[in-house]
């Protein structure tokens, strides 16, 4: 387990105990390499969200191992003391809805993460603006979230996920509210960013429009993951 990116081995998650216990994740194995975008697909109740929460260090798995880059972050118990810092510095999140902070402009929405990490405001904003050109939101840097279109908001959310250059990004149905064209655009951007910043990106989706774009897909059913080769279609 020395490969970078994110690696999950035999992760399990059980809710409750005794007769009422629910085994949400029974045996999850995944590996996403840096620069790779993989799909995580499964029906409702299959364990997608639980897996995402485990990967995002929001809930603790019951067993297994998780590696982030070279670091073993979970080995039947958290190996990292400060999970908050882990989420802030090493995991990027992109949600189904952009969930931008409504009272911060685009720049500060993105710069907030480096600021939270202790960077000076000017440096944090510079770091945020460096992403705007790549995401084609340079001209909206001073706009408030309410002034942005759905696609623009999602690009800002992607910028926020990327701004601390995390080794992994967890995207929870990032194209759900978008039409086909914009959904494909978001996936294209995620692929570009993954390549550019050597980030491993896991996209949880139901979206039939974007599933064919993945080169690799993990199916999850009844808490067990199965790997499948994707079509890897072009985004056009």
């Amino acid at each position, binding site marked *: 387990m020395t490969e970078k990116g994110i690696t999950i081995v035999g992760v399990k998650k059980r809710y409750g105990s005794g007769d009422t216990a629910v085994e949400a994740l029974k045996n999850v194995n995944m590996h996403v390499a840096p620069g790779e975008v993989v799909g995580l697909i499964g029906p409702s109740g299959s364990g997608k969200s639980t897996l995402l929460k485990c990967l995002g260090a929001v809930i603790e798995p019951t067993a297994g191992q998780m590696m982030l880059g070279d670091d073993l972050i979970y080995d039947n118990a958290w190996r990292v003391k400060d999970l908050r810092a882990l*989420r802030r510095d090493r995991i990027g999140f992109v*949600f189904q809805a952009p969930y931008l*902070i409504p*009272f911060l402009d685009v720049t500060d929405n993105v710069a907030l993460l480096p*600021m939270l990490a202790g960077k000076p405001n000017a440096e944090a904003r510079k770091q945020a603006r460096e992403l705007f050109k790549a995401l084609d939101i340079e001209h909206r840097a001073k706009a408030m979230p309410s002034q942005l279109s759905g696609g623009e908001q999602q690009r800002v959310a992607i910028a926020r996920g990327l701004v601390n250059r995390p080794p992994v990004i967890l995207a*929870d149905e990032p194209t759900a509210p978008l039409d086909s064209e914009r959904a494909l655009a978001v996936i294209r951007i995620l692929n570009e960013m993954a390549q550019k910043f050597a980030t491993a990106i896991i996209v949880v989706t139901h979206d039939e429009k974007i599933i064919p774009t993945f080169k690799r897909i993990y199916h999850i059913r009844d808490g067990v993951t199965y790997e499948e080769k994707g079509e890897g279609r072009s985004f056009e």
Partner: protein
Amino acid sequence: MISLAGRDIMHSWGKFVFTGMGLGLLIGVTLSMAGIYRGMVDDARVLLENSGADLWVVQKDTLGPYAESSSIYDDSWRGIRSISGVADAADITYLTMQVRRKGVDVRAMVTGITAGGPGTPGWPPYLIGGRQITRGHYEAVADIATKFKLGERIKIRRNHYTIVGLTRRMVSSSGDPMVFIPLKDAQEAQFLKDNDAIREQRRRTEENSAFNRPGVPGLLDAIIASQSINTYVNAVLVRVATGHNPDEVAESIRRWKHLTVYTRSQMEEILVGKLIATSAKQIAMFLIILSIVSSAIVAFIIYTLTMGKIREIAVLKLIGTKNRTIVGLIMQQSIALGLIGFVVGKITATLLMAPIFPKHVLLEPLDSIFGFIAVVMICILSSIISIRAALKVNPAEAIGG
């Protein structure tokens, strides 16, 4: 690090300002209530200060003349004047009544002052217009709060008086403006009956065989005459000579004249501790109720604002925001709301309520400082519920599922 609270306030400033203004009106009422209490205490002190007395000689075993009725003979002052350490002594009567002016009643404390001059105990110490009373009858000096004008004619009981002077800040402990008239007029006014009652009294006296004795000529006339004059005053105000201890002089008067004597500090205690004590308790109760209402309003507003941001808080927690940043966001907003409220409240109390309120409202800077501290404390305490709710938010809520 940017101020999240500041940005949120700037983003929805209208909501904050209007909410703060609403809260401010409540704080304004609270500050005004404190000001009313201070005004009552100040009125009591001013009443004592402006009387120019060091000692109040009153009927034995009474708390007169302000807190209880007190009657002593109007020549008592002569004996008191002769006691060592007494620089000056003067009779005084107080009668709170409706004074008529052009058919309109004005509630005032009619004060009967003895003949003398400025500096005589009981006299208004200064005038802002006109002159002091120089005649023995039917002249008056009024506090400007009565809205009487110089030269105006007012009616006290059956008699008319001309306003010859105006003074300021001469009020009773309950805030009624004072009207000074000559002592003899005031004594008459205190017990003046209507003509029918006087005739009835004379008839009854004439029919009383004990008073109407054929063998004692002049007895009936003497008794009737004594019934229509008032030889009592409410108190004698005493100014102590320089170099004498008021307590010792008071003790001498008590011993030799068999009357009750109060020093200034004792009289102040009677006024503040007894006379306005009930009002003070009522005001204190109002202050407590208003503080609780203010706290509830701040808590409700902050809770509503926080609950409206629950998803953003979940996202902030998910992306690694420290709890203290979230606590700061809520608490700073709560304090900002309190600050807006306090500024609006202070302006409301100072510029709106104090000038138009029918009682003297004294807004002390120290009360404002305590008020400010109380508002900040209330805001901090009120935000605790919201902070608890925010800290309970699971970052997983941002992910859903």
